[in-house]
């Protein structure tokens, strides 16, 4: 028998014998790998589906002619593109090789559903355009009914109609954003699906489209071109390019479809997959701790076995090999199971998504080599990496250890650990503070955050000793939890101290004489010295739980670390989310001077906005003092895209608090603009100086700075008048209308009056200041919910780790538990003791996680504050964090449930007899 096969045999037989011990490890790897695989497969599948969707829908388009100018503002992946002359279509049609060309007039138009609520607008765009007569050029296919022939007739995509409860023959309103009365005459499909994902589309006559979607007739978003027989796409583009005017380009249909896919990928898919990948990373990180802990405990419990192997002549490497081989088997098996699970999850989601109203494009699951190979590799590396240190430690077992009674845990509060940990913590703090307060740098702050995490992990064992002593103390004064039947006097009930007995690997039942172990009893002298039995505090079960948790600081800390990371991320997001909300509150509070706001959905860019006519109509109401609409524009300044606020500057000063205004907003005119003070300073512009803006239509204009205001939060950095913007605008719309009531008008009646007027404009929401602030924060709650759901997995893995550690501890303390039962601990007391230990460990992890998460949240807020120009508020939400803490504790109790039950089921006699 070769030594390798001996190693393998020992590993396998040991695995078979201790299956249960590795159940937790197996589950942790499996869950992490499944999450990762599911994410990758889903991402690929979605991408492939969109690819085929666009390719299918636009297969009849061989070239697209469009403006070459595009301006991309920060934070938007899709640039604003200028229009082309619709007359180009006729000219292009004459080019040899062209079979057909059609102008594609496009803009935003949001349908109002049968229930009066607008359809969509929560992210994906609500498009409207001309219904292209050439069926092969039109990406939409008529599925039912007929095409629009007369003004007011429209075709809508079937998905939108279903969402809004509309059918052929129905009459409804299309917000363009001016309300337009339309009648549905047909339903359309896109590439075989009921729509382009959640995007809605309304097709109207060419005349209607030009009337409602463009500032003036004769402009189109692009011209779609179909090649005649025998002309390739590139050939066609080459033929078109010479006849196009300056600033207009032609690209192949394939390139256009690819751009569309990329756009969706960029806006949604990449974000989506990155998001999920980050969370599967967190889950795997948490799993690392759990797995490492399990292997460390198993190695400690097997010290005698390993020592025997060494005594019998096994080389150090062979012992390491045995341990690693075990880990490898678990790693491969669990990762493979995780792959299956992940593919299953992706398939399940594909089936589930349509059921919850998210049309997952049809198509086979796309399972690439990467989405299988990467998770497999990660799972194996995580598992083996976690087992590496314990395996090396196993190899160091002295043959003599076989003769000693039990392994002694020498880890924990070594001075070097304390020093290293404190040094790390100091560096982390310094780096972070410098990155946050000195020269603001996300990278420095991020490095500091990572270092802080490392410091927490290194300091964990040291901290656990101190923290658990504190935590175990108040618990001792509680009573009645242990189910102890006897009267409880001043004496803290027994299960507390008993529970302290549970958490250590090393100090097993001491049989042989043991001065050798004396040095281990470091945490000995906590009982007050003095007259022995006069006033000495007596112990309770929770006492025991606490001492058990203290037995092996390293094990306890590692167990808690897993939970700590999970809770830290939860706390980080909770704090950051609360801070964002507080920031919005603060912004609205400081900058919004109006009484009510009429707004388009603020989360997500969807929807078609508000009719520019609305502000004027509202301003005419008898209750209203002023109403100002804020529209948006884009321009390029010094080569960078910037957002413009297009409004009536005089009214703006009433609706918003702009802070100190230098210069005058009254006379911006068509060639003047107002700047935020920060922007003016950054660009070195003073009042009266000139600056040049480039627009999407290719024109450039010089503007004079006529006013500088202090608060840019709602007004943005650039304010232009409507007349200045008019020559460059596309579809006109406002994003918000700020309304101020006349003195003496009460809020309710004022709001009701505005609502009545707004109803005619597609029923946008009218919000009080508070509602406006809250709706701005609504997206944050949505994001937090998603984050919590994703973090649940990491927390679950951490709890599995706690349960696993406890199970192992119960196993190794069988004799002690038996003794406790023999001398009179009831089953209920024993269960309570084990559960308390679990709760204590969870409390430690939760407390650490809250502290770390709170700190990281602060760092994030400060970093955001330092790098952006918005004034960030930092907010620690006490209620939410208390809920997090309670959930952590309760989960700890839950994790202890099974180990406690198993411990209580121990047969007393066997337990005492166990060697």
């Amino acid at each position, binding site marked *: 028998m070769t030594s390798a096969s001996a190693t393998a045999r020992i590993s396998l037989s040991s695995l078979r014998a201790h299956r249960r011990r590795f159940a937790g490890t197996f589950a942790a790897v499996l869950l992490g790998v499944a999450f990762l695989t599911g994410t990758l497969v889903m991402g690929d599948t979605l991408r492939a589906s969109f690819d085929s969707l666009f390719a299918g829908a636009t297969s009849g388009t061989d070239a697209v002619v469009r403006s070459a100018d595009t301006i991309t503002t920060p934070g938007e992946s899709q640039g604003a593109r200028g229009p082309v002359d619709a007359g180009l279509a006729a000219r292009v049609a004459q080019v040899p090789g062209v079979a057909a060309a059609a102008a594609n007039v496009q803009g935003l138009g949001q349908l109002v559903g049968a229930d009066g609520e607008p359809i969509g607008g929560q992210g994906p765009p609500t498009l409207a355009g001309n219904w292209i007569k050439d069926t092969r050029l039109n990406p939409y296919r008529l599925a039912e009914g007929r095409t629009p022939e007369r003004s007011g007739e429209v075709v809508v995509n079937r998905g939108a109609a279903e969402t809004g409860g509309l059918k052929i023959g129905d009459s409804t309103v299309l917000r363009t954003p001016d309300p337009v009365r339309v009648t549905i005459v047909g339903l359309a499909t896109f590439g075989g699906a009921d729509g382009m994902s959640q995007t809605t589309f309304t097709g109207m006559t060419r005349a209607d489209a030009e009337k409602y979607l463009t500032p003036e007739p004769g402009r189109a978003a692009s011209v779609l071109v179909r090649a005649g027989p025998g002309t390739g796409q590139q050939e066609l583009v080459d033929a078109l390019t010479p006849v196009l005017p300056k600033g207009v380009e032609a690209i192949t249909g394939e390139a256009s479809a690819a751009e569309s896919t990329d756009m969706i990928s960029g806006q949604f898919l990449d974000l989506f997959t990155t998001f999920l990948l980050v969370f599967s990373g967190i889950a795997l990180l948490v799993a690392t701790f759990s797995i490492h802990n399990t292997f460390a405990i198993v190695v400690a419990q097997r010290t005698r076995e390993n020592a025997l192997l060494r005594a019998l002549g096994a080389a150090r490497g062979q012992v390491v090999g045995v341990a690693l081989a075990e880990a490898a088997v678990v790693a491969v098996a669990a990762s493979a199971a995780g792959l299956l699970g992940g593919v299953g999850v992706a398939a399940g989601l594909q089936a589930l998504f349509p059921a919850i109203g998210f049309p997952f494009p049809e198509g086979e699951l796309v399972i690439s080599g990467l989405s299988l190979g990467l998770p497999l590799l990660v799972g194996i590396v995580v598992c083996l990496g976690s087992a590496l240190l314990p395996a090396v430690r196993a190899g160091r077992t002295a043959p003599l250890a076989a003769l000693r009674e039990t392994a002694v845990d020498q880890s924990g509060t070594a001075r070097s650990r304390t020093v290293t940990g404190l040094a790390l913590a100091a560096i982390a703090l310094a780096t972070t503070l410098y990155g946050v307060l000195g020269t603001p740098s996300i990278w420095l702050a991020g490095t500091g955050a990572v270092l802080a995490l490392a410091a927490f992990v290194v300091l964990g064992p040291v901290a656990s000793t101190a923290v658990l002593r504190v935590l175990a103390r108040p618990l001792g004064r509680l009573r009645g939890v242990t189910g*102890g*039947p*006897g*009267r*409880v*006097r001043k*004496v803290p*009930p*027994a299960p507390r*101290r*008993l529970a*302290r*007995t549970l958490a*250590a690997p090393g*100090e*097993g*039942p*001491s*049989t*042989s*004489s*043991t*001065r050798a*172990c*004396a040095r281990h*009893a470091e945490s*000995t*002298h906590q*009982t007050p*010295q003095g007259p*022995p*039995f*006069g006033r*000495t505090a*007596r*112990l*309770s079960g929770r006492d*025991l739980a606490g*001492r*058990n948790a*203290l*037995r092996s600081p390293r094990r306890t800390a590692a167990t808690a670390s897993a939970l700590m990371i999970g809770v830290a991320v939860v706390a980080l997001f909770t704090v950051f989310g609360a801070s964002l909300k507080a920031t919005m509150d603060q912004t609205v509070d400081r900058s919004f001077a109006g009484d009510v706001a009429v707004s388009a959905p603020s989360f997500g860019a969807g929807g078609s906005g508000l009719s520019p006519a609305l502000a004027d109509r509202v301003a005419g109401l008898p209750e209203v003092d002023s109403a100002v609409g804020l529209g948006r524009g884009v321009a390029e300044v010094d080569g960078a895209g910037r957002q413009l606020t297009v409004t009536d500057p005089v009214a703006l000063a009433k609706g918003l608090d702009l802070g100190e205004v230098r210069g005058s907003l009254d006379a911006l005119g068509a060639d003047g603009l107002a700047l935020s003070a920060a922007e003016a300073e950054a660009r070195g512009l003073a009042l009266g100086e000139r600056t040049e803006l480039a627009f999407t239509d290719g024109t450039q204009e010089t503007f004079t700075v006529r006013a500088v205001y202090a608060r840019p939060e709602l007004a943005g950095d650039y304010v232009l008048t409507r007349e200045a913007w008019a020559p460059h605008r596309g579809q006109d719309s406002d994003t918000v209308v700020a309304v101020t009531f006349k003195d003496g008008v009460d809020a309710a009646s004022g709001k009701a009056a505005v609502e009545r007027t707004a109803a005619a404009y597609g029923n946008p929401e009218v919000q009080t200041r508070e509602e406006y602030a809250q709706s701005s924060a609504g997206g944050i709650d949505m994001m937090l919910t998603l984050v919590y759901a994703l973090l649940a997995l990491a927390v679950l893995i951490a709890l599995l780790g706690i349960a696993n550690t406890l199970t192992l501890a119960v196993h190794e303390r069988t*004799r*002690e538990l*038996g*003794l*406790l*039962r*023999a*001398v*009179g*601990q*009831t*089953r209920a007391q024993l269960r309570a003791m084990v559960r308390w230990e679990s709760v204590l460990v969870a409390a430690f992890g939760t407390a650490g996680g809250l502290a770390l998460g709170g700190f990281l949240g602060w760092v994030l807020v400060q970093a955001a504050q330092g790098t952006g120009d918005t004034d960030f508020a930092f907010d620690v939400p006490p209620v939410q964090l208390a809920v997090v803490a309670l959930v952590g504790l309760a989960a700890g109790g839950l994790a202890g449930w099974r180990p406690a039950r198993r411990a209580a089921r121990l047969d*007393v*006699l*066997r337990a*005492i*007899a166990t*060697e």
Partner: protein
Amino acid sequence: MNTAPVAHAAARVVDAVKVYGSGDTEVRALDGVTVGFPAGRFTAIMGPSGSGKSTLMHCAAGLDTLTSGSAAIGGTELSTLDDRRLTVLRRDRVGFVFQSFNLLPTLTVAENITLPLDLAGVRGDTEWIDALVDVVGLRDRLHHRPAELSGGQQQRVAVARAFAGRPDVVFADEPTGNLDSRSGAEVLGLLGRAVRQMDRTVVMVTHDPGAAAHADEVVFLADGRLVDRMQGPTAERVLDRMKALDGARSDVPDHPTQGVPNTQGVPNTQAVPNTQGVPS
């Protein structure tokens, strides 16, 4: 209510039968044993390996249940008690000393001693415990951990713990099995003094005639049956009786006692003191 044949018994079993396994693997560890352990006396249970002496002790102490027959502590019939009542009875009325000390490593000496009282949530008689501490000679070790004590000291802690709640009876299972001869003699002396000076009741299982000689009475078991009783034993007489028993059962197959530790008939060479000459 006590109509048992043995009056004034701190603990007793009547017609005790304990069967492990069934069918071919059936083992009758106890086969109709009736014995009482009188209050205020030190009784040793002896017998060859597999004779059922540990089983008898476990059943009499309420750690294990009888297949048939009855066991009682004081006047309380054990078979009528559920697990919780049995636990409480063990806690309040029975003390244990085990071969392998079985102290809790995380607790100090003082805490180990009061463990049963703490589990009950009562303070106990502090004067009594104080006196116990002096008797076992551990006053200066009260705040140490078991790992800091020698084996003999640990077993003395266990003895103090067993008597701390003034139980009706203390059961000792091979209490000297893991000790050297001097420490063993100390522990046996403690048990004897507890009986004679403090009016306690001790039942001790041992296979060491020298240890048995410390008792007031020895009961002999063989093949699950009570075969003899000896008052005022000496090591020589006990050894002789044991040799006779061994000879008598040499043709009987060995009965393994399941789940019960350290019942080997062979003297533990490392721990057992010389078998001669500890006078009673």
